[in-house]
């Protein structure tokens, strides 16, 4: 009893965001995720406060912890000074470290995020670049976005002299030395290990689910699947 609770408390966000809860439900009242999903941040705080290992493990294996949008609307509102979102961040991090995230549909999506955003950071130095926002995967970006991507050099060239090249300005290429520094930061601070952990557990789960490992097919499966069981 209390093993997972102690592990969670090693995360300073959980130390900062978890005090006693008076079950007022204010966090749930302002929460955009609670409005849309079968999700209740008040309950998350309560379950963690029980210190019950089985209950906390169930959370970390479930879809529930992945619904939050990390908007932080709950933070300034809690009369007890809790930040349910910090508790969620702690649960998500631990769920990935322990490999439990692959046991839920929403949790498995971490692989897609790691590859689409995480790897892009180490490739380009940016979270996103225009060519990542591929119109085929982003129909909601609309007709103008498609036009922009079709004429990216022409359009971005109007606003930045260094689109994809060296120098100061928007969408410049990040120089090799800075990229090396970024890579070393990810190495020494645990970022690369964390990426590897996501890949390793996804590989295991993908095989269990009948894929030839965590290949593009599996990743696209996690990216597009919605069982409609979340509302």
């Amino acid at each position, binding site marked *: 009893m209390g093993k997972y609770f102690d592990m969670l408390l090693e995360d300073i966000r959980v130390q900062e965001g978890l005090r006693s809860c008076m079950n007022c439900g204010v966090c749930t009242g302002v929460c955009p995720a609670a409005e*849309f999903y079968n999700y209740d941040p008040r309950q998350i705080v309560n379950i963690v406060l029980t210190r019950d290992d089985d209950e906390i493990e169930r959370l970390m294996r479930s879809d529930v912890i992945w619904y939050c949008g990390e908007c932080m609307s709950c933070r*300034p509102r809690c009369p007890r000074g809790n930040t349910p979102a910090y508790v969620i961040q702690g649960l998500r991090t631990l769920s990935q470290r322990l490999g439990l995230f692959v046991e839920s549909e929403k949790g498995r999506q971490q692989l897609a995020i*790691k590859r689409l955003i995480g790897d892009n950071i180490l490739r380009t130095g940016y979270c996103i670049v225009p060519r990542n926002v591929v119109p085929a995967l982003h129909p909601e970006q*609309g007709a103008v976005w498609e036009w922009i991507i079709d004429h990216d050099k022409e359009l971005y060239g109007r606003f930045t002299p260094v689109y994809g090249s060296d120098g100061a300005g928007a969408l410049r290429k990040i120089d090799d030395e800075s990229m090396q520094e970024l890579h070393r*930061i990810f190495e020494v601070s645990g970022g690369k290990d964390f990426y590897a952990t996501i890949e390793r557990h996804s590989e295991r789960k993908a095989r269990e689910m009948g894929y030839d490992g965590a290949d593009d097919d599996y990743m696209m499966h996690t990216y597009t699947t919605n069982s409609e069981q979340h509302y």
Partner: protein
Amino acid sequence: MKRASWQEYQKDIADDKYYYARSCIRQNFFPGSERAFLDILRGDLGRDVMDDPIHTSCTGIGYHSDVVPLETIMTVVARQFALMGEAGYENFISSCITSFGIYTEILSTWEEFPETEERTREYLYKATGRELVKPRSLAHTSDIVFHFRDEIARKAKRKLVNVYTGRPLRVVEHIGCHYAKIFPKSGIGGSEFPYVLAGMIESWGGEVVDYPERRHCCGFGFRNYLVQANRGYSIANSQKKLESMSPYKPDFIVGNCPGCSMFLDRWQYAIAEMEGTTYGADGQGIPVLTYEEMAGLVLGYDPWELGMQMHQVDVEPLLDKMGVEYDPAAKYLGRDGRYIGKPERAAVNNGCQRAIYDIKL
């Protein structure tokens, strides 16, 4: 008594000599806004802004979608601060609300948990040989525009006024959750009375629209947009805001955060295509501006030089109301002034059947 409590919501904003950190989202979707910010600060206001060619992303989108660990983002942020120090600056300004929230949160975490600052210093030194220097002041770029709003008003070529009726334009402002909900004291007006955009709108002659869902999230929700299967969350939250604001007949929306501005623009497109619903006048969409675009129009900049052709919802109806002179054809020119063709037509700009705008309150 009232005065004293309002003081709590003010923040000190440096007057000059800024180190500028660009935003992944803003430069992707609003590259003209980043350029306009620098042009306004340097050209119109005569300020010194350092545009460093070697800073990187803050990695904030990776952090808030839980693939980048806290220790890693802290070290990346420490590198940005170190670069500021090496360049001889102390006033750090960020062009993105997600980044701004992260910088604020990390500085505060270092205060509260000094061992995390120590560890970050070690990681930074080990990885890059650089030394962490903490900024003397931290601001979002909209704080800077707010700070100079009266000076901009004095130089204004146009006001936020409808030239046909002489009445103030009605403006919806969207602050972005991470501006002041994480640390209320970090934002002008705090999380209760955010005034950063409202202050600009009032100074430049417009009227701020209050509506029920004014403080609701735009719906980005990080993983809830990034993963295709989750986008229902994102569009549903934007829709909630749009439905709520439309009956108040806003002339335009202005966003603090580049992500929010992009979503409120694009989801109008998606809703119009999916359901035939629009939220602005004449069955069209509501134009969504960045505050740099709003300031740029006030100062007489050309809308296509501001990058407003990159919006999905057409801005021409607003330009006409404001009395902006523009060349309609120049919207479709590339960098060398060559015509590059037009985007496909979209329902949001063509006039839709189901318009919430005309509902009587």
